[in-house]
C-alpha cells in the first residue's frame, strides 16, 4: 500500500458520494465463503457529518468519464483530477476495511471509462476477485452502467446482491437536456433484464409491504415466471441439494435527481410508482440537486439544495411502499406539489375528513395505517393488543402513536379526543403551529428552481404546466 491508494480513495470516494443508495439490506446469508455474511435488515457502520449513514464502501472504479452529463461532478468537461483503481487493488482494500468492520460490503460504481462494456468488464473483474479469490460472502451492490450488454450484466448480477441502474432524471426530456449521451432504452433495458431474470430465478419480491396490503395493490405483485421465458437466460437450478444460482437476491434500486429540472412532485411520485409497479424495485431514491456546475440548462449555482422537498418526497415514497397509498391519492393535477408545512399523510387526511375519525378498536389494519401519527409498528401493536383487551387512549402513547397528530383523527371506544371540531382549517392551524421545522434552506416548491427550458418547443412536452406528459412517453418506450 502506498500514498497513491490514499489519493485514489479520496478522489474516487469524492466522486461516488452523491450516490444516494446506502442500504445493505435484503440479502440474508451466512458465511458460505471464507469471510463475510449478510444480514437481512442491513447494518449501518458509521454516520458522516451530514448525518447520512456509511454502510458500504461506496466508491467509483474510475472517474475518467467519456460522458458529459451536465449535473455530474465527473463529466468529461469538468476540471477534476482523474483516477482509476486496478480491480485487484480495490478488492484488497475492501477486504482490509471489511476485516476491521469499517464497512458492511462494497458499493461499486464507475464513470464510463472508454465504453459501458469496457467499464462493466472491469467492474466484474473486481467483484469476481472478491468473490472467488478472497471468498467474500458479504454484501455487494453494483451500479449498472446504462447500455451495458446483457451478457456482462448477467454475470455481474450473479456475483452481486443488489443491482441499480440510475434513472437520473424523472422524464425523457430532462434526460435529453442534461444527459444527452444516456438513452432511455439504455436505462430501461437493463432494468427490465434484471426484473425478468429475477422472476426466472424466483428471487423477485415486491417492495415494502406492497404485496401484503389491500386488493388495490395487486398490480405490484411479481408476474408469473412463465411469462418471462423470453428473457433468454438459463433457468436457475432449483433441484434439491444442488447449488442454486442467485441473481441479485436483494433486488434492484434506482435514483433520480430532484430539483435540477422542471418536473413537479406529482410527476416524480407517479414515475416512482410506475417503477415499483413495472420492475418491482426495492427502492427509488431521491437526491436533492446540489449545484456542481454552471450551465444555462441548470439552476442557479447559489440555489440551496432542496432538502425539504427531498424529505417530503421520501415521506410520500414511504406512503407508497408501507402504507398502501397510490400516487394519485397523495397528489393530484390541481395540487401537484407536496406541502412544505405538513407531511403528505396529514395533508391527505385533511382532504379526506369523511373517513375520520377512525375507531381504534374496530378498524382493520389498512384503515389504522391511514391515521396520521400511526405507523406500521404501532398499528401492529394495536392489532395485537386488541385480541387480548380493548385499547384505551392512554395506551396509545406507549404503543408509539404520535398523539400530537393522531388525536384529531381517531376515536377510542367511541370517544373523540381532539380538542375541537373535526374541521380541516381548525386542525390545519393546530398542526402547523406545532410542526417542527425541517432542515434545509429551500423555501418554496419547485417553481423558482425551474429554469426556462432552452430546447425547442416540440421537444418539451412536459413543461411547468403539464409535467405529466413526459412521464407517459417515457413508459411508452417500455411497451416496445
Amino acid at each position, binding site marked *: *500500500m502506498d500514498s497513491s*491508494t*490514499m489519493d485514489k*480513495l*479520496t478522489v474516487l*470516494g*469524492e466522486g461516488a*458520494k*452523491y450516490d444516494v443508495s446506502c442500504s445493505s439490506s435484503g440479502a440474508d446469508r*451466512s*458465511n458460505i465463503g*471464507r*469471510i*463475510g*455474511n449478510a*444480514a437481512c*435488515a442491513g*447494518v*449501518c*457502520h*458509521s*454516520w*458522516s*457529518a*451530514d*448525518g*447520512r*449513514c*456509511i*454502510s458500504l*464502501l*461506496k466508491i467509483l472504479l474510475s472517474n475518467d468519464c467519456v460522458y458529459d452529463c451536465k449535473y455530474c461532478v465527473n463529466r468529461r468537461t469538468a476540471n477534476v483530477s482523474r483516477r482509476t483503481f486496478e480491480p485487484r487493488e480495490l478488492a484488497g*482494500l475492501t477486504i*482490509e*476495511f471489511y*476485516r*476491521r*468492520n*469499517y464497512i*458492511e460490503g462494497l458499493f461499486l460504481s464507475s464513470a464510463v471509462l472508454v465504453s459501458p462494456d469496457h467499464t462493466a468488464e472491469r467492474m466484474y473483474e473486481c467483484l469476481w476477485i472478491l468473490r472467488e479469490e478472497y471468498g467474500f460472502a*458479504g454484501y455487494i451492490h453494483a451500479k449498472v452502467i446504462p447500455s451495458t450488454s446483457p451478457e456482462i450484466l448477467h454475470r455481474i448480477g450473479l456475483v452481486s446482491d443488489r443491482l441499480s441502474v440510475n434513472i437520473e432524471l424523472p422524464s425523457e426530456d430532462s434526460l435529453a437536456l442534461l444527459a444527452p449521451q444516456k438513452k432511455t432504452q439504455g436505462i430501461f433495458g437493463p432494468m427490465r433484464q434484471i426484473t425478468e431474470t429475477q422472476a426466472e430465478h424466483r428471487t423477485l419480491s415486491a417492495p415494502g409491504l406492497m404485496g401484503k396490503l389491500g386488493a388495490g395493490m395487486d398490480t405490484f405483485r411479481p408476474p408469473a415466471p412463465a411469462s418471462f421465458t423470453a428473457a433468454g437466460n438459463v433457468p436457475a437450478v432449483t433441484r434439491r441439494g444442488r447449488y442454486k444460482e442467485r441473481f441479485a437476491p436483494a433486488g434492484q434500486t434506482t435514483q433520480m435527481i430532484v430539483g435540477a429540472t422542471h418536473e413537479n412532485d406529482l410527476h416524480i411520485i407517479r414515475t416512482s410508482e410506475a417503477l415499483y409497479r413495472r420492475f418491482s424495485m426495492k427502492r427509488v431514491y431521491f437526491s*436533492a440537486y*446540489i449545484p456542481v456546475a454552471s450551465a444555462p440548462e441548470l439552476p442557479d449555482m447559489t440555489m*440551496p*439544495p432542496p*432538502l425539504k422537498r427531498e424529505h417530503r418526497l421520501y415521506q410520500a415514497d414511504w406512503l407508497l411502499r408501507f402504507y398502501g397509498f397510490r400516487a394519485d391519492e397523495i397528489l393530484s393535477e390541481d395540487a401537484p406539489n407536496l406541502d412544505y408545512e405538513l407531511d403528505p399523510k396529514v395533508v391527505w387526511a385533511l382532504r379526506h375528513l369523511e373517513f375520520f375519525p377512525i375507531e381504534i378498536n374496530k378498524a382493520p389494519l389498512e384503515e389504522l395505517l391511514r391515521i396520521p401519527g400511526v405507523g406500521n409498528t404501532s398499528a401492529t*401493536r394495536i392489532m*395485537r*393488543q386488541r*385480541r*387480548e*383487551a380493548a*385499547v384505551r387512549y*392512554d*395506551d*396509545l402513547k*406507549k*404503543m408509539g402513536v404520535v398523539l400530537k397528530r393522531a388525536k384529531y383523527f381517531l376515536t377510542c371506544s367511541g370517544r373523540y379526543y381532539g380538542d375541537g371540531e373535526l374541521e380541516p382549517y381548525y386542525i390545519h392551524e393546530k398542526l402547523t403551529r406545532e410542526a417542527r421545522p425541517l*432542515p434545509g434552506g429551500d423555501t418554496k416548491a419547485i417553481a423558482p428552481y425551474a429554469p426556462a427550458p432552452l430546447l425547442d418547443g416540440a421537444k418539451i412536452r412536459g413543461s411547468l404546466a403539464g409535467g405529466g406528459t413526459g412521464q407517459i412517453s417515457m413508459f411508452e418506450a417500455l411497451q416496445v
Partner: protein
Amino acid sequence: MIYLYDGTFDGFLTCVYEHYYSEKADGICPPGAYQPDMLAASRRVHTDEGKAGKVETAIIGKISPYAFARIYRVYRTSTDGKEMMLLNYLRFCFKRGPGAAFLHSHPLVHPVARAEQKIGNEVHRLCGLIRFSSVSAPAGEGAAQTEILYARVSPDHEALEFLAPHFADRFKNEPFIIHDTKRGRAVFAWQRRWHLSDFTEQDAATLASTAREEAYRSLWRNYFDTMAIKERTNPRCQRNLMPARYWENLPEMQLR
C-alpha cells in the same frame, strides 16, 4: 422477604422458584446492591441449577419459548431493579398466559418491552460500530505469534454474547477478541466457536499493534471525511444516529 443472590441468571431463576415455593419476594438484590432495611428481613439464596431448570421449563411450557428468550435478554440489560421487574412480569404472564406479551401498554409489560428494545437496539448498533484492529498476540506455549483481530467496546448493556454469533460467523477463519472494557469481559472466537471469559487491561496490553494498522486507520478516516457532503452538513442528525458515548472506540471520530 428480600432475597440476596449471586448475580447470575440461574441465581435469579432460583429466586423465582423460592418466591413460589417458600416465601414471597419483596425484593431481589444482586451483590452490592443491597442496603440493609430495618423493616424487611433478608435471606441469601444459593443458586440451584435444578430449581432454575424447573423454572425454565415452566416458563417455556406455560408461557412460551419467546417469553423465556425475552426474559433472558432483559436480564442482560443494566436496568435498575430488573429482577423485580421481571418477577412481576413473570407472575403476570403465568396468570395471563402467552397473550400477556401482546398487552404492550400494560404497566407490568411495557417496561420489560422497552428494556428488551434497548438491548436489541444496542446490539444492532454495535454490529456496525465495533472497530477491529489487526494486532499480534504474543507467542504462548506451543503457539507461535499470530495476528488476531481485537476490538474494544463499552456498551450500556451486556451485549457481548448477542454480538458473538454474528461476528463468529462473519470472521470464521480469523481469531478475534471483542473486549468489553466496562465489565472486564471478552468474547474469544475462532472457527465459528466462541466463549466468554474475563479479560483485563493488563491482558489487553500484551497485544501489540501491527505496522499496517495505522495506515488503514488513516485511510478509513480519510474516506470518512470525504463522504460527507458539505452542503448537507447536519451534526445533530449524525449525533442522533451515532451517540457520542460510542465515539471513544471509533477511529473516524477521534480528533485529528
